[in-house]
């Protein structure tokens, strides 16, 4: 059985639901209840597009227990074209070719197995945008 912890986040995990502050238009992923820019409490929900740009990145070579056996893998902060930034793995690209400013798009992938039952969690990873 999927845990409550994972199904609560389905709208973000599977549909990339973000929110835009009705007062100042600042965007948030995941959605928040209070805007940290203008203290507004009114938001509209929107689905983020998949495009973004690498802001910074690293290669994890010594992972935590949950990712043992998967290293080395790349992780980066992606500035989404729709505003928010998010941390994701960067895949399908040689590790040494990842650069700040690289255009990427999110794809739906296997993330990790949760807890002792090994329920597989899915989510988004970034792949290079090839013209």
């Amino acid at each position, binding site marked *: 059985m999927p845990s409550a912890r994972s199904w609560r986040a389905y709208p973000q995990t599977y549909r990339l639901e973000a929110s835009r502050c009705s007062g100042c238009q600042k965007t948030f992923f995941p959605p928040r209840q209070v805007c940290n820019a203008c203290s507004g409490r009114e938001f509209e929900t929107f689905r983020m597009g998949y495009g973004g740009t690498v802001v910074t990145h690293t290669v994890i070579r010594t992972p935590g227990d949950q990712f043992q056996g998967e290293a080395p893998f790349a992780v980066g902060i*992606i500035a989404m074209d729709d505003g928010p930034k998010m*941390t994701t793995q960067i895949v399908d690209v040689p590790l040494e070719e990842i650069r700040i400013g690289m255009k990427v798009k999110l794809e739906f992938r296997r*993330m990790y197995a949760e807890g002792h039952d090994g329920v597989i969690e899915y989510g988004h990873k970034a792949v290079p945008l090839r013209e």
Partner: protein
Amino acid sequence: MRDVAVIGVGMQKWGEIWTKSLREIFVESALLAMDDAGIDKLEAMYVGSMSPGLFAAQEHIGSLLADYLGQAPIPATRVESACASGGLAFRMACMDVASGMHDIVLAGGVEKMTDISGGEATFALSTASDMKWEGTCGVTFPGLYAMMAVAHMEKFGTTREQLAQVAVKNHANGSLNARAQFPTKITAEQVINSVKVADPLNILDCSPITDGAAAVIVVPADMVKNFQQPGVKVTGTGHATDTIALHDRDDLTVIDSARLAGEQAYKMAGKTPQDIDLCEVHDCFTIAEIMVTEALGFCELGGGGPAVAAGHTALGGKIPVNTSGGLKSKGHPVGATGVGQVIEVVEQLRGQSGQRQVKDAKVGMTQNMGGSGGSSVVHILEVM
């Protein structure tokens, strides 16, 4: 508010202490601090500890430690702000005394990190990040600081060699500190060729996993004449928070919580960066020291790498940073680290630091940080 002073300090050597429990290492350091002050009764205590639950399967340690220290039923509070827990416990103790609530208060910190495996410890530490939106993609704490390093190198031209110089300097300082976990000099070549953890950071860019405790005694400044040691006055304190998810920050190359906490402390103490004789900063990773020396105004933004390479932050430099060896060499028992920083500054201001004594030190500073900068606590201390 009343002026506040530190009148006793206590800390044993940090490291892998397999023969002693969390409560034993805490009580040892607390008793050293109480003996240093010449007291056997406390009125209250604050203990910084990040996660005794995950590291040692024990919560409720405020009461546990007060009891084992022979001080129950005094009020005892555990304080948590990830790796800034110790610094924040010290701030809580100072606020308690300043308020007039109590006169003799212990500020301590403790973490017992080696009772679990390295992988489990990495997980426990990662809970100081945004677990849902950072942790689930496999990014570790070295990974978060590595991403700050990559952004800093891209923007300011900070180099791999400059990062290594932080570790070289702090290990040189730590080699003069009998209480350091790794009191061993290292070379830049060793740092650059050490095992890769998260590019560009290697294992010798990272602070270690450590068991350790530390404690200080805080009293009203006008009471210091009643004690055997010279008092050291706490003249400035600052505490600021930021998003705990690194990706939610506008600028990844500045640690804003450190900058803001520093500004608060400078204002309260009526000091500027030029007035500081030495500073203990939170060098959990080499890039962190570079970014914090910038945030506290010891150099301009982007100047942290050149400053360490030029020796400005070494013993004998313009502003000696981490004379204790820092987290890098002295060790990083996360909840105790902030209190250990206060102890180094107090001993320097008392003139008790032996071979690593900063000459004529009158004003010292500490900066303790939680997570990737989601919290920072800064203190300024002065001779009385």
